[in-house]
């Protein structure tokens, strides 16, 4: 064996002879290879994080992105997604409207610790329509907008997609006036929408009710996020509870909108579920294009 190897080594000059034969082509290929190697590598030096170009809150009208995070209390990878959503809310204060939708396989009830039902009709409708849990959890939609042929975006892609969208100017402004009767648990809200751009298609308006700070079990497999395999006192935030005007909302303007025009809609709803803590609830209002389903602007206010 050793003798054969030394034979090989002695024959190396033959290989170099070959390169002399196909001179031009071999030089060209070497240049191509080297240029590949030089340009095709980015090695990042620490620190790896940056205090990205976030925004500071001012009084001017800002574009607000509707982020819907599809999750479930049996989904061990989902707490990580909630962390990314809150990182974005800190980076872009007031510009992210977050709704957490519990639906699908990982939201089902399993005794003894997972018997709380976080699902609701609207959440189930949205999950079935967008087919999220068949793709997997955690996953989300950003303004229900399509990117590269898909509306379902993974949590690690939320920062890039959201920061790109936030560079665009706002297209509408939603001002909400609401009246909440504590005794009858009735909500009456009026949304006044100012448009800054023209829109051709029908504009729809939806209002959803969410609840914060629900302490309950959550499965988890990331020790950096919390206890493994489950967090007994996980704080569930922005849980979608109901739609005030059905899953797909009402028509705000059937013939589109003109820049500078004002449209308004009044929505009423009575809360019948006494288990919900009304002190911890928010109302999320958003308008979207009926054809593409893409959300134009959103707004959030406290219930009480």
């Amino acid at each position: 064996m050793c003798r054969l190897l030394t034979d090989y080594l002695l024959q190396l000059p033959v290989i170099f002879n070959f390169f002399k034969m196909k001179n031009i082509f071999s030089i060209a290929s070497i240049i191509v290879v080297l240029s590949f190697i030089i340009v095709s590598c980015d090695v990042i030096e620490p620190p790896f994080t940056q205090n990205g170009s976030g925004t500071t809150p001012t009084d001017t009208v800002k574009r607000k992105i509707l982020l819907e995070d599809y999750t479930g209390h049996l989904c061990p990878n989902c707490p990580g997604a909630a962390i990314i959503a809150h990182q974005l809310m800190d980076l872009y204060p007031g510009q992210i409207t977050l709704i957490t939708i519990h639906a699908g396989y990982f939201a089902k009830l399993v005794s003894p610790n997972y018997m709380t039902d976080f699902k609701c009709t609207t959440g189930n409708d949205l999950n079935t329509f967008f087919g999220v849990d068949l793709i997997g959890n955690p996953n989300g939609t950003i303004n229900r907008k399509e990117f590269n042929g898909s509306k379902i975006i993974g949590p690690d892609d939320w920062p890039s997609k959201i920061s790109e969208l936030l560079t665009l100017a706002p297209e509408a402004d939603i001002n909400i006036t609401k009246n909440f009767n504590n005794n009858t648990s009735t909500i009456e809200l009026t949304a006044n929408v100012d448009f800054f751009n023209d829109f051709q298609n029908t504009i729809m308006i939806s209002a959803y009710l969410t609840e914060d700070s629900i302490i309950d079990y959550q499965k988890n497999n990331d020790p950096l996020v919390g206890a493994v395999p489950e967090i007994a006192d996980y704080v569930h935030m922005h849980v979608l509870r109901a739609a005030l005007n059905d899953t797909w909302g009402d028509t705000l303007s059937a013939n589109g909108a003109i820049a500078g025009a004002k449209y308004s809609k009044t929505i009423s709803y009575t809360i019948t579920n006494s288990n919900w803590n009304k002190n911890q609830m928010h109302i999320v209002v958003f308008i979207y294009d009926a054809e593409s389903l893409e959300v134009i602007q959103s707004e959030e206010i406290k219930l009480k």
Partner: protein
Amino acid sequence: MNKFFTAALLIMSMTSVAQNVLQNAQIHGDFQTDFQYYMADSAIGADTIPEKLLSNGYLNLMFSAGNFSAGIRYENYNNVMLGFDPRYKGSGIPYRFASYSHKDFDITVGNYYEQFGSGMLLRIYEERSLGIDNSLDGIRLRFKPYKGIYLKGVIGQQRFFFDKGEGIVRGIDGEVNLNELNDKWSGSKLRTTIGGSFVSKYQPDKNPIYKLPENVGSWAGRITLNYGNWMLNSEYAYKVNDPSTVNKMIYKPGEALFASLCYSQKGLGITLSAKRIDNMNFRSDRTVTGNALTMNYLPALTKPHTYTLLAFYPYATQPNGEMALQGQLNYKIKKNTTLGGKYGTDIAFNYSRANAIDMQKVNDSTALMQPGTLGYKSDFFAIGDELYFEDVNIEVSHKFNKKLKGIFTWAYLTYNSDVIEGHTDGTFYSHIGVADITYKITPTKSLRLEAQHLMTKQDKKNWANVMLEFTMAPKWFIMAGDSYNYGNPVKSKKLHYYTFGFGYTKNSSRIALTYGKQREGIVCVGGVCRNVPASYGLLVTITSNF
């Protein structure tokens, strides 16, 4: 595309080359369509499907004339069947190519499949039953400048369902067969092939939280040595920082090493393989999970099982890190000996084991796998403590007489469901036995019986499976089978998953009908888990080619 083909047709028919080309012209293709009619069954957890009927359809058409070839594939999902990614929706032509080859050079434009070495850096392939198709849409060049030297260059974007991924993939690969290269070595007993590849991907960084590398480069070197009855195969790959969803956004470079040693002679074959994977998830979009946009292939060092109960606990390589080894023995006990019997006996033994890699903190102030840091340190040859998977199995094939033959398998599987499925159910230990006996009633009619048993104290406990199949060569088969979870501690969950099947094959066309129930499963790939629901219904599969 329509204009392109009409123009090509017109030009070809007008030139004198036309007659020649048309004479050499060949058309061939294949199609496959699967459709399933679903019914609800609350006991097994099969929900009602609103569409009731789901189907996947594929049609491949290829045209070749002399040095030129072209082809397309039409796919239809109205809607896609359960268990497949629902982003396969609607229909379209996701695959089309044209290629020209001349002597030692060939160029392909459009969609193509390619593999560099064993695929540790780049494997673009199609595995329809798993819903994997990451074809590159771009240009591929292959060139043999001299005998024994094979060069390839690729560039393109990967398929993402009916669209394209954001990332751009480019790569070059070179392989040299030293025995072909130099005539003096062509008769040598030692045969050597060496190869190297370089692959990189580009994806823009718009992330406000992390400073992400837009170009991620990787390189690999490989060698294959053959000497008499021995063969040694080895490949090493290195990838620079590639923070992604799968590796939790850490900046550690990735490494992989694979080596296998094989000895084979008449009647005996032994293979020993070992592998180290450290942070080698490689996709053209860093945020994607599931079966989409993968660029490389990190196969498990395990024996693929096709018997139902043996396939209950399959292992998938953990791209974030694993140390694995496998030993396989294939031996034929000669005929006309006591153990061999009249026809000889084939024995196949396999041992596979996968452990975690050893992970240490980078420094005291950084947690293990903390996003936005180097993540961890790992000694190249250290083996982690956690056992992911172990499979000891032996398979004996024996022909008793002209009419009766059987394959008998026994396996002991250790399956870490926490790591493999992302569950929190612990590790499952199971003993599995399978007997597969075929009895030839006449030279063309035969009966096959499969009896399987799975014994475990974890998960859903014990299962038994029985299947009977009657075939009439060369066209017909009919089968009936049942998997029974008799050991389930919950009485209402002691369920039967029965199936009945029937098929007809005529030359290259085949139609098969299966009616019955299928268990649910959970598929976890790269940080996202997806539930494949249980189903109950009628499945029809038709394939043909022409």
